[in-house]
């Protein structure tokens, strides 16, 4: 689904942000992309979603370069941004119907059904987004990411702003999507999300991938290397790989 070879990128007049990233993500896999702020996570995601151009190396998604047919590519992906980014003067339903109308009719999901699945408070359905809590906005934003039945789903901090019950619901929904065959590229600081959801995890720091494996393998390797009998966590792995914590 995703094939990245020697990916490099630098913003104008600044040093290189990405230094030759190489990784691949299989169909139907949940791939965690973890790293501290400024490590190059967002830049990588922007390149993968076709927003940033002018990179070095090769990037193939769904068998082709995103720039080859950007329109078709965007019809097949869904993105949950770190912030909800919704029209606050419109209701949840109006927002979803508006964004859905950019996709072909046969790909659109029913906005009402999606919101019900996300346990959205239906009495707010026609109220403007400006009156919603952070968690409700996050639910609408997730519904927007799923509205076109994407083959490839990019999630940036999906459980941020959610209460524990909401986070459990989101994780269940992400699993459901994967079971339907959707590939998921998850960017997060939340180690619990990464541990529970991801098939494989890549740690990125200073524009380089420091470690890439399944969460269990990474934890096991870390335990052996540190000669520590207690069970390692993903956070321990990250600190060992990069020499710093997730901030």
């Amino acid at each position: 689904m995703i094939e990245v070879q020697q990916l490099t990128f630098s913003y104008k007049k600044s040093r290189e942000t990405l230094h030759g990233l190489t990784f691949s993500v299989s169909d139907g896999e949940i791939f965690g992309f973890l790293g501290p702020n400024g490590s190059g996570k967002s830049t990588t995601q922007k390149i993968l979603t076709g927003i940033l151009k002018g990179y070095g190396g090769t990037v193939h998604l769904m068998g082709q370069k995103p720039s080859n047919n950007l329109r078709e590519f965007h019809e097949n992906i869904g993105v949950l941004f770190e912030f909800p980014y919704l029209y606050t003067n419109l209701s949840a339903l109006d927002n979803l119907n508006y964004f859905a109308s950019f996709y072909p009719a046969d790909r659109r999901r029913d906005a009402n059904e999606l919101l019900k699945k996300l346990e959205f408070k239906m009495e707010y359905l026609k109220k403007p987004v400006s009156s919603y809590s952070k968690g409700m906005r996050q639910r609408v934003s997730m519904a927007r990411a799923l509205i076109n039945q994407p083959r490839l789903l990019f999630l940036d901090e999906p459980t941020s702003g959610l209460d524990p019950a909401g986070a459990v619901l989101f994780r269940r929904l992400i699993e459901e999507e994967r079971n339907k065959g959707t590939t998921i590229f998850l960017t997060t600081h939340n180690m619990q999300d990464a541990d529970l959801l991801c098939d494989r995890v890549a740690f990125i720091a200073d524009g380089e991938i420091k470690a890439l494996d399944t969460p269990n393998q990474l934890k096991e390797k870390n335990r052996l290397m540190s000669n520590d009998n207690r069970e390692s966590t993903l956070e321990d792995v990250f600190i060992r790989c990069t020499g710093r914590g997730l901030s």
Partner: protein
Amino acid sequence: MTHHFFLLLRKDLRLMLAGKFFLLALGSLLFYSLYINLFYAKTDQDIYPVYVYGTHHTLPKNMDAIHFTNSLEELNDKCMDGYSVGIDASGENINIVMKSSDINTIDALRVQYAESFLQYPGRIDEADKFLSNFREPEKLIKNNSLELKNRREITCEFLFFELAAVGFLGLASLMFKEKEMGVIRVYGILPGNVWAFIFSKLTLFVVSDLVFCILLTLINVGWKPCIAVLPAVLVQTGILSMIMSLAGLLCSVCVSDFRQFSLLYLVLAIFVTTPVFLVGQTSVKLDWMLYHPMYHLFMQMKGAYFSSVTSGFVYYAVCTAAIIVLLCAVYRAMQREMAKEG
């Protein structure tokens, strides 16, 4: 792209309605019209005094915008101030008499103004042919009263101000709203096109400016003169509206917050439009004004209101180039904005 364009157009229209943009435009229209009809149209100032020799004995008595002279010498004397304009209608051909103000566009406007008193909307050489068919001198000058002149002038100024300053602010406020909500970033991953995003906004503002122009001209100039000048005025309105809308869009994308933008707006309003009005409407001379793009846009708009656009190929070529450059700059800025961090 057409489907996405109309989707964006409908969404922008909703945002404009929610932002009470049309209500504000209607308020401006009402305010300008009240000012023109209750106050300005009745003022007796005449910016370029027009002196006529040769037809005064047959002219109607209520032609208060023009002054008659008893001889050609007197006409020449009156027009030596570099400000007044003379019409010598004593011979078979009509001649415009005036001393140059040393600024070509001002001279052109003075000629346009004097010509607007003639019954035809045309140039001097065409006038010669036209006038040779007439023997009765009273037909040489139409009833372009001082009130009508005032109406044309002030309507032109208000329209220019509305397009240059208010329109600029209107589009920027719409853009800042979307920037604040962050939704611009979402368009980066939608199957739509950045051009559709730009053109939907541009279309809405240009169309609303054209409608505003029609209503303002119709209400304040009167329907007969309005019909005569409207095609030329609409062309100039379209050009100015496109340039200002794109400039507003560019500034609102590039400038990070509304406070910075307000400062930019003040600079534009005070230092850009004020000298244009000063030179365009009074005898103040500023040589560098010829290099001021807004000055040319204003003079062409004024020429359109007096049925005498003097612009040629170069003017339209420069305007087209400016619009293309602005469009490309907005496209690049928009792409950058879509790729920004949250």
